[in-house]
């Protein structure tokens, strides 16, 4: 009795532990969207089936090779081949296909509201929001925000090489292929931040190409979209004004755009609302002044192969000013 209770406690503990082990900001098993939820359920069902079948086959193998006292009749052998090799798998696979494929159309259903276009770059994400009826996109980078409770349409492209757009907590992945336009859609159900990462090998810093997907309540999403549609406000402090001058004199504007200033480069990420993002350098650094300074000083040390040159020649004061300016781009 005690033993049984002990087993029960251990079992329950193990279960809780293993469920806790499945959590994580990038886990497909702690879903925050309809697609990921359906797929997680599919996984748990398949897992139970797989464990049962595995035990059956290997139990039988063990029995036949280790336990069985004497040879068995030939008719049983024939039945095993036909039953185990043909009848059983046909039924299981047919059932699985019926269920598994039936969930597919929903996963790729057409979204409504603001369409989000994501372009894979080496190694960051160009993001364009296309509100319904808009002629021009709202440009952002390295983070996407989605309204909860709505299925949003996502258009996927790539600049030079193939990438794959994947936010496990919200749904499956779709490749971004140069010369092609792919589409997918996501329907987040719970607000929060979900980490995503490029899933197709895309060169040196493939490992360092991540992004956060921030799911907001619909009204917050609309308000936020309205905010980032606006150009950057003027620098507010003296230090920030100095930083803005450094930004322009160092030629940062050749690659980066800050709407509302002379900087209109298209090669690198748009920085108009840089400081409002949850992370830096495509999901790999926290948005802190120190991280920003480290990045500007030597991007290649943080992200091998990154195109951005290092600005280690900037004086301490210039760097502080520059960082202050960028940190002010809310």
């Amino acid at each position, binding site marked *: 009795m005690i033993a049984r209770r002990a087993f029960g406690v251990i079992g329950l503990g193990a279960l809780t532990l293993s469920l806790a082990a*499945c959590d*994580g*900001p*990038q*886990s*497909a098993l702690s879903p925050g969207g309809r697609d*990921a939820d359906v*797929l997680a359920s*599919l*996984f748990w069902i398949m897992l139970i089936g797989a464990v049962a*079948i595995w035990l059956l086959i*290997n139990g*039988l*193998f063990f029995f*036949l*090779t280790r336990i069985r006292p004497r*040879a*068995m*009749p*030939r008719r*049983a*052998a024939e039945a*095993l*081949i036909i039953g*185990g*090799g043909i009848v*059983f*798998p046909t039924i299981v*696979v047919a059932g*699985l296909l019926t269920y*598994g*494929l039936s*969930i*597919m159309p929903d996963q790729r259903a057409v979204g409504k509201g603001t369409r989000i276009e994501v372009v894979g770059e080496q190694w960051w994400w160009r993001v364009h929001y296309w509100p319904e009826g808009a002629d021009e996109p709202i440009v952002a980078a390295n983070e996407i925000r989605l309204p909860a409770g709505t299925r949003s349409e996502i258009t996927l492209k790539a600049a*030079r*090489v*193939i990438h*794959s757009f*994947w936010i*496990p907590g919200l749904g*499956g*992945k*779709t*490749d971004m*292929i*140069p*010369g092609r336009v792919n589409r997918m859609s996501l329907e987040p159900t719970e607000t929060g931040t979900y*980490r995503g*990462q490029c*899933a*197709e*090998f*895309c*060169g*040196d*810093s*493939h*490992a*360092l190409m991540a992004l956060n997907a921030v799911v907001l309540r619909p009204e917050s999403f609309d308000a936020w979209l309205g905010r980032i549609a606006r150009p950057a406000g003027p620098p507010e402090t003296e230090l920030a004004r100095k930083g803005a001058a450094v930004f322009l004199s160092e030629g940062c504007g050749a690659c980066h755009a800050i709407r509302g200033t002379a900087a209109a480069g298209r090669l690198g990420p748009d920085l108009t609302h840089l400081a409002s993002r949850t992370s830096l350098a495509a999901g790999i650094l926290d948005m802190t002044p120190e991280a920003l300074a480290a990045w500007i000083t030597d991007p290649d040390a943080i992200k*091998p192969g990154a195109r951005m040159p290092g600005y280690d020649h900037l004086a301490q004061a210039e760097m502080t000013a520059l960082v202050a300016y960028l940190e002010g781009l809310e």
Partner: protein
Amino acid sequence: MTTTDFTPDPARISAVPDQDRWPEGIYPPTEEMLAEPVDPELCKAQEARLREVWADPKGWRYWSAVNNSEVGKWYCLMAFGYMLAAGVLALLMRVQLAVPDNDFLSADRFNQFFTMHGSAMMFLFAVPMFEAISILILPAFLGARDMPFPRLSAYGFWCFVIGGVFVFGSIFFDSAPKSGWFMYPPLSMLDGGIGADIWLLGLSFIEVASIAAAVELIVGVIKCRPPGMRINLMPLYAWYVLVVGGMILFAFPPLIAGDLLFEMQRSFDWPFFDPARGGDPMLWQHLFWIFGHPEVYIIFLPSIAIAAMVVPTAAQIPIWGYSWIVLSAVGTGFLSFGLWAHHMFATGLPAMSLGFFSAASEAVVIPTGVQLFAFMATLMVGRVTMLLPMLWIAGGVAIFTAGGLTGVMVALAPFDWQVHDSYFIVAHLHYTIFGGMIFPVVAGIYYFYPFFTKKKMSEKLGRISFWLTFTGFNICFFPMHLTGLKGMPRRVFTYPGDIGWDWLNAISTFGAFVTAAGILVFAWDLLRPKGKQPLTERNPWNAGTLEWSHDVPEEFWGVRSVPHITSRYPLWQQPKLLERMDAGRYYLADAEFGHRETLITTAIDARPQHIARVTGPAWCTIWAAIFTGGAFIFPTFHLYAPALISGALALACIIWWLWTSTAQHPEVVKKDVGLGLKLPIYVSGSAAPGWWGMFITMLGDMTAFASLVFGVFFYWTARPDFPPAAAAHATLPWVYAAVICYTLAWAATWAARNVNCAGNAARAFQGLVAAVVLTIAGAGSLFWALWGAGMDPTEHVYPAIMWVLVVWVLAHSLAGLVMLGFCIAGSIFGRLTPRYDADLWNVTLFWHFLALTAFVTCTMVGAVPRLM
């Protein structure tokens, strides 16, 4: 007493008396004939002669050996060596991933390592290992003395050594390929170094060697079986060789075609994968996976074949469900070509394709299940002893079934969207490959080791190695399922510490080292000197198949005499077989003319057909391999002149080898092979293994060509601008001229064969010369049809793919010309006569395929684009 009733081929009008070409005498042998004793003196003399003929060369000349027992052994060890090397790369990667944000390996080096790990395991271990083991043991399964083309095996082996060292060696110069073993463009196209070229050219070179070995294995199974071993009596291993050989033949060529397109873009800027000029990176993915998925079964089925040999021995009864297994193996082979797109579920394929490929992928469960359950049924009916090899098989089953079940999961497109390219897939694929390949192969090595070396491996070390490998493997790869589901993508050189992947990765790294310890124990057991150990008994496992009739101590002649087989397990079911084989009672017990000979039988019923004289030790195979290597390796460094010279020298070596040692005129028309049967020594046409070799090679060649043609239609369906509206097309009159010239050249070759057969050698000579002139005219017309029209292959993918088809035809025309030249020279020097016409038969066969290639190309170039 039955006499043979070999009927002459009525379609063949021949000047040569038919009785010269056909066997005569008694077949099959009767019990009285077999029971007749052999004179022991004669037997001794025969043994001495056989021993001398089959002896390995001594000293440094040892490396010129070509017989299957030597080449097979080197091949196995070399493949095993590459496996250990690729395993070391895996360990280094696991060290890098043991903790988050590690800097043990740089991103660049990590990317080189994982690319090389995958490429080497696939191209330098898994496929070659199958071919190596098969070369080593297939003749013994079939009671043959050797493979049909020993020098081809040797050539393939040396190509493998050179190509492998070249590809793997690049890792030491920090210039290895680093775009993944799948080499997806555009990434691999943008790789500025020579890594991608090393991959493309080096591995193409090895693929050619793999295809050569596959051709030889297929011919071996079809033509080198012992008399009486009808196709339904073959050991299951031979069936699997046939299926897998066929798969290699049809799976590798699409990749070679893809490599060709790829290298043309890298070296000459032909824009096959460049979207800006009409290309499409997806074509590579299709071609790669049309190869890549069958590849999975190419490495899995041979291991099942090993299990199919071990299981009946462990159960001490014949395999249960032989026909089921054969059907399933063939079924798996066919199905595997219809699954490739499941590697591309996330690329945005239409829902229809996703559904189809999901269903097809799931369907593979059925033939796989049948094979597995047939083994279980055998164990059920028999009385099982848990031999050491069976332990490894059992471990393999436990691991493989887990991998198979996750395979069922990922075959479902929507679920694959989540786990594709994540660590879940890393776990899945290693479960299938370790369980479906490594464990059965190790089982096979333990099982066949006494056959290979006449010594035994240690039972104790075997068990230690098993438990280390088995537990280590699971510690390493089981957590990866979870790592993947928690979102960790594959092929990342580092990861952050705060998302719950750190402890899982630490466990995996620990497991990797335990696995490595297990493999090391095995390697030590395999390679440790066993000089003092006594020789093994002849049939240590009491198995029933023919390979255990081997001689202890070792003799190089393969079998003392080629037996007459009437059962699937001759050592169990034909009681006096062994003693009669040893006495030289059966066929071909002597080598009185001092040549290496093996028996050729008919494809289905295995009736004796003729004696094939196989080639002996030679250096020209090594030189041919070295120069072929040069032809592939120099272009890596854009050294095209040395490459051409090297290619010409390779060709010269091969011509020398064919001229001096294949299809020689024998000193007698027929030889008495014993048991009242006389067999011809020289045959031509479809009775000769060389004809089969050509036929099978050309099937592979046509597959590569078909892949290029597929490319045209792919661009047409995938790209709206194919062909561009304003594009220049090939000039029609020149295309017509090419069609006419190739038709006439083909007809002239064919006619030459027929009139030569009818005895008119002079007229045949004229036909051959005419064929040469017409081929040159045809090739020139085809070239001018595009060149004259000003089609620039760098401008757009349309002219580029048209040029590739034409280049393909031109290259084959060159080969056709060389062959015609070979026949013309043969005719001049008396090598090719109405009686000895095997070369001309084979060349005509090549020409059938060349003509087809040329016609299809002319249609593709001249007509199809105008209709699109």
